[in-house]
C-alpha cells in the first residue's frame, strides 16, 4: 500500500513538502511522501458567535495521508487485539471523524500534546502529527458549525463559597458557612458542577440552620443567650512575628472579625500551649504579656505566669474579666506584646515553626516564647440591646414611626431583600408569601422580629438557594434555545464574581438588553474590573491548579524546619496574586508559565532568596532567577506535589500532565509497590529520589507510563519539598535531566518551561476547557471542543489576553443557550 498524495496548495509559511520515512511494515520497507496542505481551515471555521478573529491557517493533510498515518502508527497498538488504553481504532475512519467525535477528540488531545505515538515507538515527523490533528479538528469544527450543540445542565445550587458571597453582598456580613453546609463535591476539579451537587436532608438542614443564624447575625439578637465561639490557631503557624490585623507592637496570637450578637458583656479566654509534661511552653521567657484588643483598642492586658501548668485548676487558660462590647462585626485580637526585635542569639537558633517539637519549650539555651493555642469568646451576659451594625443599616432602609406605617415599611424592606436574593424582579406572590412570615414572626407586635423571620425565609428559599433557569414555553425537545437575559445575568455574575448579580446587571437583564453584544461586552469588562473578579483567582484558578492540596501537605518539620503554616499561606497567596494580575491587567494567559515577576512578602522572599523585601505585605518583584519564573517555580505548586519527606517527581509530572496538558496519566495498576518500599540507602549512602525512582521504574509494566510522567517531574528536582532551590538531594548532586515523551531533551525547569511554551496550544486549550467548565457549571464534553478551539484561535489575535478567553466563553452557544430535553418516560 503506497499512498502518494498530491499537493493541494502552497501555504504561506512553514509548511513544505516533507518526506517521511516509515519503518518497515510487514515485509516491505517503503517510503512515503506526505504533503502537508494548509489554507482551507480559515474558510471552514465554524460560524459560531464571537469566532470572527483571524488566525493563522493550520496545516491539514489529504484524507489518504491521514489514513496512512493512523494505520501505520496507531493501529499497531490500538487494534481490536491489543486495545491499548481501552481504545481500538480498527473501525475508526478519519473521513468520518465528526461522527466519532468523542474518539476523534481523544486522538487530537494526545497528538497535540505530543504524547502519541508513545516514547520508544516509531514516530512520524512532528509536522505530520500536528497536521493530522489539524485535519481532524477541521472536519469536526466544520460539522459543529452546522449543528452546534450547546449542551445542557440541570440547575445549580449555591455552594459554600457562593452562599457566603451572596450573603455578604446581600447583608454585608461575613459568615462561616463551613459550620452549616456540608463540603461541596468536586467534579472535574470544580465545586460548582451542577450534576455533582447532590441533595440530602443534612444539606437542607444546613440551609435552614444557616438561614436562622445568619438572619440573627445580620440584625443582632436582643434575646441572645450566652454561648462560646472558639477560634483555633494552626499549630504550625509561626507566632514569632506580627500577625496581620493585630495591633503593631505585638507578636503571634490571633486576629479575627467576630460578629457579636448583641451589646453586652463578653469574656475572652486564651489557652496557651504546654510542653508534653504539662508546663507552659516558653516558660524560660519572663514577663510575657497577652493583650486583648477590640478594633485596635486594648481591653485587657494579662500577665503570663511562667509557672502555669495543666495541673492548675484552670489549666492552661487565661481569662479576661467581663468586657462590654457592642453588637456587630468587630475585629478582636489576642496577641503577645513584642518585647524584642531582631535575630535571637542563643545556644540553639530557633526556627520559624517553633512548635515543631514542644519538648524544647522549657529548655535553657533555646529561646522559646509562649504560644496561643486557642481563643474563645464567651457571652453575652447582661444584654443591653442591639446597637447599629452594618447589617442593620443595610436592611432597615425605613423605620416605621407608628404601627400604621409598619406594614408598608416591612413590605419595602422585604421586597428589597428578596429582589436581590432572588436575582430577579418579584411577583406579587413572592411578596405575599414572605409577608406572611413577617406577620407570624412578629406576631403583630415586634417589627424587627417579623423582618428577621421574613429574612430567614428568604435565605432558606429555593429561589435563593437554587439557580433555576426557565426554558421558554415554546422550546421543543432537542431544540436549542437562548437563555432569558436574567438567567444570563446570573451565569455571568456567578462566573466572574462567584456571587449574585448586582443591580446594574439585573437592570440590563430586566430590560432584555444584556444579550446585545455591545452591552454584554461592556458588562463583562465592567465586571472584570470590579474587585469581586478576584474570585477568578481565589476560586477558579485555585481549583484548576489544585491549590487546596497545599493544606494537605505538612513537610516533615525535622527536615524542613523553615516551612510552616504562615509560609504555606504566603505561597498560596503568591499564586492567586499572579492570576489576579492576569485578570485585572488583562495580560496574556501564557504568563502563567513565563512571568518574569511575582508577588512575595518577607517570609516568601527569604524562602526564594529574593533580597530587600520586608513586612507581611505582598509586593510585586521581578524574578532575577530564570529558573523560578512562572507557576513551575512557585512554592505552592512545588510543595503540594511533594510528600512529607521527599519530592515526588511522579506527582509533579502528573500535575503537569493533568493540569497544564489536560492529559492525566492512567491510575497505577493495583499491587504496585510504593516508592517507600524501595531501599532508601545503598552501599552506605542515602539514595536520591531520582535513584529510588529509577529502581522503581525497572519494572517494565511501570515504565510504560513512568517514562512519560517522571521526566516532567525530574526536571523540577532542583526544587525541594518546599520549593526552595537545592543542588543536592540526600547528598548526591541533583540531576534534573531527562527526555520528554516527544524526544525533547530536558535539563531542568527552564527547558521544561520552554517545552510547554512550544506546546502552548494544548496548554491554552486545557486552560480554556477548565475556565469553561467553571463558567458553565458542567463538565466540558467532546462537543464543546470546537468552541474551545475557536476561543483559543480568537484569543491568539488578542495576545491571549485574559479577557479574550472570558468573552469567548461568554459569547459561546454553550454559555448563552441550552438544549431542551426530551420528556422523561412515564
Amino acid at each position, binding site marked *: 500500500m503506497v499512498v502518494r498524495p498530491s499537493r493541494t496548495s502552497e501555504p504561506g509559511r512553514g509548511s513544505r513538502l516533507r518526506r517521511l520515512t516509515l519503518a518497515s511494515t510487514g515485509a516491505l520497507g517503503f517510503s512515503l511522501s506526505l504533503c502537508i496542505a494548509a489554507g482551507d481551515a480559515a474558510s471552514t471555521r465554524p460560524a459560531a458567535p464571537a469566532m470572527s478573529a483571524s488566525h493563522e491557517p493550520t496545516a491539514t493533510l489529504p484524507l489518504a495521508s491521514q489514513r496512512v498515518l493512523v494505520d501505520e502508527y496507531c493501529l499497531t497498538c490500538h487494534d481490536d487485539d491489543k486495545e491499548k488504553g481501552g481504545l481500538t481504532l480498527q473501525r475508526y475512519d478519519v473521513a468520518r471523524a465528526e461522527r466519532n467525535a468523542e474518539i476523534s477528540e481523544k486522538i487530537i488531545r494526545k497528538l497535540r500534546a505530543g504524547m502519541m505515538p508513545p516514547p520508544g515507538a516509531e514516530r512520524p515527523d512532528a509536522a505530520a502529527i500536528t497536521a493530522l490533528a489539524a485535519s481532524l479538528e477541521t472536519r469536526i469544527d466544520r460539522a459543529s458549525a452546522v449543528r452546534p450543540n450547546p449542551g445542557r445542565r*440541570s*440547575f445549580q445550587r449555591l455552594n459554600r463559597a457562593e452562599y457566603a458571597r451572596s450573603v455578604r453582598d446581600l447583608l454585608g456580613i461575613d459568615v462561616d458557612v463551613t459550620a452549616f453546609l456540608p463540603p461541596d463535591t468536586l467534579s472535574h476539579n470544580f465545586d460548582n458542577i451542577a450534576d455533582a451537587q*447532590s*441533595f*440530602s*436532608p443534612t444539606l*437542607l*438542614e444546613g440551609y*435552614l*440552620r444557616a*438561614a*436562622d443564624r445568619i438572619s440573627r447575625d445580620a440584625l443582632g439578637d436582643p434575646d441572645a*443567650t*450566652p*454561648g462560646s465561639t*472558639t477560634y483555633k490557631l*494552626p*499549630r504550625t503557624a509561626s507566632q514569632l512575628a506580627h500577625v496581620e490585623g493585630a495591633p503593631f507592637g505585638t507578636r503571634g496570637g490571633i486576629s479575627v472579625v467576630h460578629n457579636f450578637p448583641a451589646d453586652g458583656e463578653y469574656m475572652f479566654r486564651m*489557652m496557651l500551649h*504546654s510542653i*508534653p*509534661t*504539662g508546663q507552659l511552653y516558653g516558660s524560660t521567657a519572663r514577663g510575657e504579656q497577652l493583650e486583648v484588643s477590640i478594633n485596635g483598642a486594648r481591653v485587657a492586658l494579662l500577665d503570663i505566669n511562667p509557672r502555669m*501548668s*495543666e*495541673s*492548675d*485548676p*484552670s*489549666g*492552661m487558660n487565661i481569662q479576661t474579666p467581663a468586657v462590654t462590647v457592642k453588637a456587630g462585626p468587630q475585629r478582636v485580637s489576642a496577641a503577645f506584646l513584642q518585647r524584642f526585635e531582631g535575630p535571637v542569639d542563643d545556644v540553639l537558633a530557633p526556627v520559624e515553626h517553633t*512548635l*515543631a517539637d*514542644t519538648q524544647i519549650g522549657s529548655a535553657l539555651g533555646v529561646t522559646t516564647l509562649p504560644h496561643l*493555642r*486557642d481563643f474563645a469568646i464567651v457571652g453575652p451576659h447582661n444584654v443591653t440591646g442591639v446597637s447599629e451594625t452594618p447589617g442593620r443599616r443595610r436592611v432597615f432602609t425605613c423605620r416605621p414611626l407608628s404601627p400604621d406605617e409598619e406594614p408598608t415599611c416591612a413590605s419595602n424592606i422585604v421586597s428589597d431583600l428578596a429582589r436581590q436574593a432572588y436575582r430577579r424582579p418579584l411577583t406579587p*406572590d413572592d411578596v405575599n*408569601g414572605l409577608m*406572611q*412570615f413577617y406577620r407570624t*414572626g412578629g406576631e403583630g407586635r415586634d417589627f424587627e422580629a417579623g423582618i428577621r423571620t421574613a429574612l*430567614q*425565609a428568604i435565605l*432558606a*428559599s*429555593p*429561589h435563593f438557594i437554587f439557580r*433555576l433557569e*426557565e*426554558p421558554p414555553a415554546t422550546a421543543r425537545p432537542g431544540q436549542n434555545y437562548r437563555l432569558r437575559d436574567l438567567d444570563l445575568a446570573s451565569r455571568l455574575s456567578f462566573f466572574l464574581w462567584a456571587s449574585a448579580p448586582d443591580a446594574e446587571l439585573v437592570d440590563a437583564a430586566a430590560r432584555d438588553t444584556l444579550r446585545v453584544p455591545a452591552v454584554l461586552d461592556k458588562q463583562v469588562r465592567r465586571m472584570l474590573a470590579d474587585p469581586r473578579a478576584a474570585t477568578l483567582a481565589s476560586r477558579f484558578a485555585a481549583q484548576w491548579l489544585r491549590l487546596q492540596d497545599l493544606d494537605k*501537605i*505538612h513537610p*516533615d*518539620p*525535622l527536615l524542613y524546619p523553615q516551612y510552616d503554616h504562615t509560609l504555606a499561606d504566603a505561597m498560596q497567596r503568591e499564586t492567586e496574586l499572579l492570576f489576579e494580575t492576569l485578570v485585572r491587567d488583562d495580560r496574556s494567559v501564557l504568563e502563567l508559565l513565563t512571568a518574569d515577576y511575582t508577588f512575595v512578602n518577607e517570609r516568601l522572599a527569604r524562602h526564594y532568596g529574593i533580597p530587600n523585601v520586608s513586612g507581611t505585605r505582598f509586593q510585586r518583584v521581578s524574578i532575577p532567577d530564570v529558573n523560578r519564573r512562572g507557576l513551575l517555580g512557585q512554592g505552592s505548586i512545588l510543595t503540594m506535589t511533594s510528600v*512529607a*519527606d521527599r519530592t515526588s517527581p511522579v506527582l509533579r509530572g502528573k500535575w503537569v500532565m493533568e493540569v497544564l496538558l489536560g492529559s492525566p496519566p492512567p491510575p497505577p495498576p493495583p499491587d504496585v509497590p510504593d516508592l517507600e518500599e524501595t531501599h532508601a540507602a545503598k552501599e552506605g549512602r542515602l539514595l536520591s529520589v531520582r535513584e529510588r525512582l529509577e529502581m522503581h521504574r525497572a519494572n517494565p509494566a511501570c515504565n510504560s507510563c513512568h517514562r512519560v510522567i517522571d521526566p516532567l517531574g525530574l526536571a523540577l528536582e532542583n526544587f525541594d519539598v518546599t520549593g526552595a532551590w537545592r543542588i543536592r538531594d540526600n547528598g548526591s548532586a541533583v540531576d534534573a535531566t531527562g527526555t520528554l515523551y516527544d524526544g525533547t531533551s530536558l535539563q531542568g525547569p527552564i527547558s521544561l518551561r520552554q517545552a510547554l511554551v512550544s506546546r502552548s496550544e494544548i496548554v491554552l486549550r486545557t486552560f480554556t476547557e477548565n475556565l469553561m467548565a467553571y463558567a458553565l457549571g458542567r463538565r466540558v464534553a467532546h462537543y464543546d471542543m470546537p468552541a474551545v478551539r475557536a476561543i483559543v484561535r480568537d484569543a491568539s489575535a488578542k495576545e491571549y489576553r485574559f479577557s479574550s478567553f472570558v468573552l469567548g466563553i461568554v459569547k459561546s452557544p454553550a454559555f448563552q443557550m441550552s438544549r431542551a*430535553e*426530551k*420528556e422523561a418516560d412515564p
Partner: protein
Amino acid sequence: MYITKKHISRRTALRGMGVTLALPFLDAMVPARTLLAKTAAAGRTRLSAIEMVHGAAGSTTFGLAKNMWSPAAVGRAFDLTPSSMSPLEPFREYLTIVSNTDVKNAEAFGPKEIGGDHFRSSAVFLTQAHPKQTEGSDVHVGPSMDQLYAQRFGQDTAIPSMQLCIENVDQSGGCAYGYACVYTDTISWAGPTDPLPMVRDPRAAFDQLFGVGATPEQRAANRRTNRSILDWIGGEIARLRSELGPSDRNRLNEYLEDVREIERRIQQVEAHNTSGEPRELPGAPVGVPDSFDDHVKLMFDLQALAFAADITRVFSFKMGRDGSGRVYPESGAKVPFHPASHHGEREDRIAQFAQINKYHVSLVPYFLEKLRKIEEGDSNLLDKTLVIYGSPMGNSNVHNHKRCPLFLAGHANGILKGNLHLKAPDGTPMANVLLTLLHGLGATDVGSLGDSTGTFDLTGVPSTTEMGLGA
C-alpha cells in the same frame, strides 16, 4: 441495610400535595438517602467507645496481685471491691470485663519509636493498627472500629457518628518523638489516612445534635418557624416545577423528599417532647466547663440524649490526653495525671494512681444510669447500647501495652449478657475483642482489625475459680 425503597406514606404525602408524579420513577430516584428510623433498624445498637489514657495501676505486677483492675475470680462471682472498677458494682448486670488483653501495635517497632508511646497509643486504641512515625501529613494507621460500624449503619441517622473529647486538640503538626499530633488527638479514623477531628466544646456538639437555641422554648419556637418555612418551601417547589424541564423537575422532587424528611424529624422530636419524658437538656451548655467532672458529665448527657432521639448511634469519646498534667481533685490524689502514672513501681504511688483510675471509671455510671432510665420499645437504652471503656496502655510506668484495662457495659441488643469477668489467655490481642464486637454489631463482613488473630467468646461463662498471679 439502609438502602431501601420509599415509604408508602411518603408517596401519599406527595399525592396529598397535589403533585402528579409517575410512581415508578419515584422508585428509581436516588434511594440511598431514605431513612429507616421508624422501621426495624430503629432498634439498632448504639455504640459509645471511650478511651482513657495512661493504662491503669492494675496492670502493674503489684496492681495485679492486689486486683486493682481485674478481679481475682473469672465468671460471675467476681469481687469488684479492690478494683478501680468498683464504682460499676451497681451496674454489675450490665458489666462484662475482659482482662489480660494486649495492644501490641502500640509498642515500639524500632529504635526510633522507643519512648514515643504517649504519642502513638491513642491512635491504636480503636484501630489496633501501628501508626507510621511521622510528623508530616503522611500519617497512616488504620480504620477505627467505631467508624467501621458507622460506615455500615450510621447513614440511618441524621449524623452518622460523632467524636467528642475533653482535652484540647491541635489537629496538625508534630508533637514529640517524631509523631504527628493527630495520633494523640483523635481515636476515630475513617480510613488509614483519615483522622476525624474531635469536638471538645459541648455547646458545639449540642448545636450540631439538637439545633440552634439555648432554651427548650427557643428551640420549640425555632422548630415552629422551620416547620412553616418547610411548608412554604414545599409550596414554592410545587409552583416552580411547572416552569422547568423534566430533569430539573426531578431534582426538585428530590429536594422535596428532603423537605419531607426534615419535617418528619421535627415531628419526631416534638413527639418525644410531648411524651413527658425529660429528654431535653434544661439549657444548652455555654462552653467548655473548667471542671473535668462537669465536662465529662455534659458529654455523657449529650450522648444519652442523642441516642434517645436517635440522632446518631455512634460516639467515640476521648476522656484524656497522653502526657496530660491535669490534677483530679475529686479523686483524692493531688498528683498530676502523668507524673502519677510514672509511679516508679512504688506501692504507695501505685495505690495513688489507682485512685485516679477509679475516679475516671466512677464517671461512667452517671452515663449508664441515664441510658437505663430511657425506655425504648419494651426495653431500655442500656439494653441496646454497647459502651467500650479501655486504654491502649497497660503499665504506664514502663510504657508497656500488656494487660490493658478494658470493660464493656450495656447488653448491646443481646450480644453481651453482663455480670461476667473473662480473662483472656496471655498474649490475646485486644483487637480480637473489638473484632468480635464489630461482628456482633452486624459488621460481619469485617475480616480482621489491626493485629486481630481471631474472635473472642464474650458470653461463655468460665468456671469460677480463684486465679493465680500468673501473667
